[in-house]
């Protein structure tokens, strides 16, 4: 049992080390380093030996010294003997090895004898592996989007793998793509349009949704259950099915290529979720507060504006942020309804830009960064509000 577990442990941990070092090598390659091979076999042997040595040495040396010794040996071989690589690469490799040896330091040769230790090792390493794998897979495209926007067409043609950013150059050269899209492609105007449309949608949606949600949450009326079930069903309904009739009607009414047209459609599509999310929250507000207000002869307008709204600021902000993000990211209707560049939103403008095969891709990526940054910023900053909103309403997408 012990020998089997020792081998298994060393095997898994060395696979994990291969994975760590490979990610580092990919990132280093993309900084223009000429790394032609992952040297999987060598790293496997290293990982295996380090794990065995770690178990063998045990407590005889302090674990911090152990980590530093193992890491240094690895870095010396990998970054100097096999291929001479720059200091920053080796420093990174050293930190990775330090992290790795720290991770394995909690396993001891005695612990490996315990029941289920095979599964515990597997489970632990799968979790670690998963965290790193998913972080990499998710962040990599975002990282590439950002670094590509700082490169030039010629630099990418010379070496398609060199995404290193030269911070020494002039600010104007570094942000050239951004200057171009704002100057020649009128992105400033599109930002304004997108902002007006998104903020407008938020305001109108809230104006319509708050009273409706209050009625659904509190008042008794004929057709209430019908209304609340149809809200959910409408929410499931596909936007692509609405496109053709809305296109024909909007064409005949002259609402295409107008901000008003987009506002109407965005408000209508976000209203069901907004009502659904808000009424759930309104129901949780104690009824006694309103009963006192009714005795004071407050009208429904007074009740909503003086009691309900001040008490549900968190829910209302979560709905507002959420509706803003839907409107900002929306693409289908802006594709269908806008064909005059003067009324484009950001998403539509980027799609239009990509339609021209001549457009250098760093401009496309700069545009993508411009449209993505506000959303990610809002999301990270207000995450607490948004996550509760997301699970309550389950975002449409």
């Amino acid at each position, binding site marked *: 049992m012990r020998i089997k577990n020792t081998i298994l442990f060393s095997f898994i941990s060395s696979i994990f080390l291969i994975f760590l070092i490979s990610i580092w090598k990919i990132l280093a390659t993309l900084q223009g380093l000429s790394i032609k091979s992952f040297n999987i076999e060598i790293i496997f042997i290293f990982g295996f030996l380090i794990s065995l040595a770690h178990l063998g040495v045990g407590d005889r040396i302090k674990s911090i010294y152990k980590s530093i010794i193992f890491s240094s040996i690895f870095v010396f071989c990998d970054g100097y003997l096999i291929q001479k690589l720059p200091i920053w690469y080796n420093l990174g490799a050293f930190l990775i090895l330090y992290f790795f040896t720290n991770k394995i330091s909690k396993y001891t040769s005695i612990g490996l004898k315990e029941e289920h230790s095979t599964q515990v090792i597997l489970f632990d390493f799968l979790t670690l592996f998963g965290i790193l794998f998913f972080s990499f897979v998710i962040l990599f495209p975002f990282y590439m989007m950002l670094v590509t926007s700082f490169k030039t067409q010629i630099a990418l043609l010379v070496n398609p793998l060199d995404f290193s950013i030269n911070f020494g150059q002039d600010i104007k050269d570094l942000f050239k793509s951004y200057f171009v899209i704002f100057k020649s492609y009128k992105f400033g105007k599109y930002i304004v349009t997108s902002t007006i449309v998104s903020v407008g949608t938020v305001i109108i949606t809230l104006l319509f949704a708050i009273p409706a949600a209050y009625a659904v949450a509190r008042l008794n009326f004929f057709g209430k259950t019908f209304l609340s079930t149809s809200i959910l069903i409408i929410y499931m309904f*596909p936007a692509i099915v609405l496109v053709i009739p809305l296109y024909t009607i909007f064409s005949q009414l002259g609402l295409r290529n107008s901000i008003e047209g987009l506002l109407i459609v965005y408000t209508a599509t976000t209203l069901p979720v907004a009502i659904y999310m808000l009424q759930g929250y309104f129901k949780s507000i104690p009824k006694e507060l309103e009963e006192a207000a009714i005795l004071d002869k407050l009208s*429904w307008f007074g009740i909503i504006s003086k009691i309900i709204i001040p008490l549900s600021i968190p829910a209302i902000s979560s709905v507002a942020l959420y509706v803003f993000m839907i409107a900002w990211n929306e693409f289908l209707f802006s594709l269908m309804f806008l064909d005059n560049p003067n009324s484009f939103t950001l*998403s539509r403008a*980027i799609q239009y830009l990509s339609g021209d095969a001549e457009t250098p891709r760093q401009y496309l990526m700069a545009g993508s960064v411009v449209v993505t940054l506000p959303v990610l910023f809002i999301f990270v900053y207000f995450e607490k509000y948004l996550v509760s909103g997301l*699970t309550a309403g389950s975002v449409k997408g």
Partner: protein
Amino acid sequence: MNDTLANTEKKTAYILTLPAVLLVFSIILFPIFANIWISFKEVELKDIRIPEPRAKKIVKSVSDEPTKIKILYKLRNSSLIQEIKDVSFQDNFPKNFEVENLDPRCSYEKYRLKCKFGNWPAKYRENFQVELETNDGSKIDKKNLKSIKPKLDGKSDNILLNTNFTLKNFKKVLFENEFIDLLLTTFYYTFFGTVGSIVFGILTAQMVNQKFYGRTFMRSVLLFPYVAPVVALAYTWELLLDPNSGTLNSLLLNYQIIETPINLLGQKYIEISLLGFDFKLRLALTTVIMFEIWRYFPLAFLFILARLQAIPKELYEAADVDGASPFQKFFNITLPQITAVISILFMIRFIWNFNKFEDVFLLTGGASGTRTLPINVYQQGFAISDIGMGSAVSIVIVVLLLMFMFFYFKLLGKRVDEN
């Protein structure tokens, strides 16, 4: 007393809900019925523009006579295919103008020129001229004359409103050879996209539910693909996967893992031999499904994580006492606790993936075997400009969805009964 109270409550409720209900019904429910109507018609994109009578006013001075002026109206029917009936025309003039040699179709009263032009066939054009003179001998201000715009009016059939119906669209949609292919593609895309995103959702939720350094950061990062705009993400992926200069192909070539670049988004099939079997994989479709999974597993992750955090800790403690292994705990405690969430997620994601348009449209435009039903709506309606066909495809989508929901709820209902 109670009765009146209930009545005012009802009234208030209707006033409060009416704006929202009206808007949603007119923008969402009405179009669905309009779709049914249009799907039985032969309508093309160019037919939906209402034909308009138009006039361009050109003011010409008459040489040597400053008190006289000629006005040329370039009249035309804006439509290339439809007739306009009973065209009427009206233009106003300053109060010192008299008309000379008036056209028999027109009358001039109170400084107002009115004409009845009768019917204009499609593409109709006419140059119509009027001569005027001031009756007090004053000079003519050409700019002022030009600034007054003539008004035109006419009647035309709105092709959308007549009652000519046909079954042609549905025959074309359902009985053309590609329909089966279209259905299969849509099904693969929807099913594998849904299952993939749920599987990854379970894995990531299980991961984040454990304690580790940077856990809240990890939770935010996992949601990035879901909250970022699809346009930006699709173009980034396209750039990464490009066969000529894409980063992925360059990397694989650099490490000598492949010898020639793979066109992940532009190649329909790829031959793969596995365990001695050769089979063809739908390459572009697989890539598009990967994007789909990548973009939507965060939703599954969020839902499942919320459920995992609600599982009582005592269950795991009891299992520890019994000496259960981590995998036993996962399969015997965790999984049964999240089946309800998974079945809801499956339905939501299945429906939404079935209708997903933007992702495929931006990545491949529906080429190389990635044409799904929603893409077909767009292609029929806007690329081929056959609005009627596009509507018919939309109706097929709605019917399929309703069928899916019906069976899903029946199945689900049965399982709930058994428990």
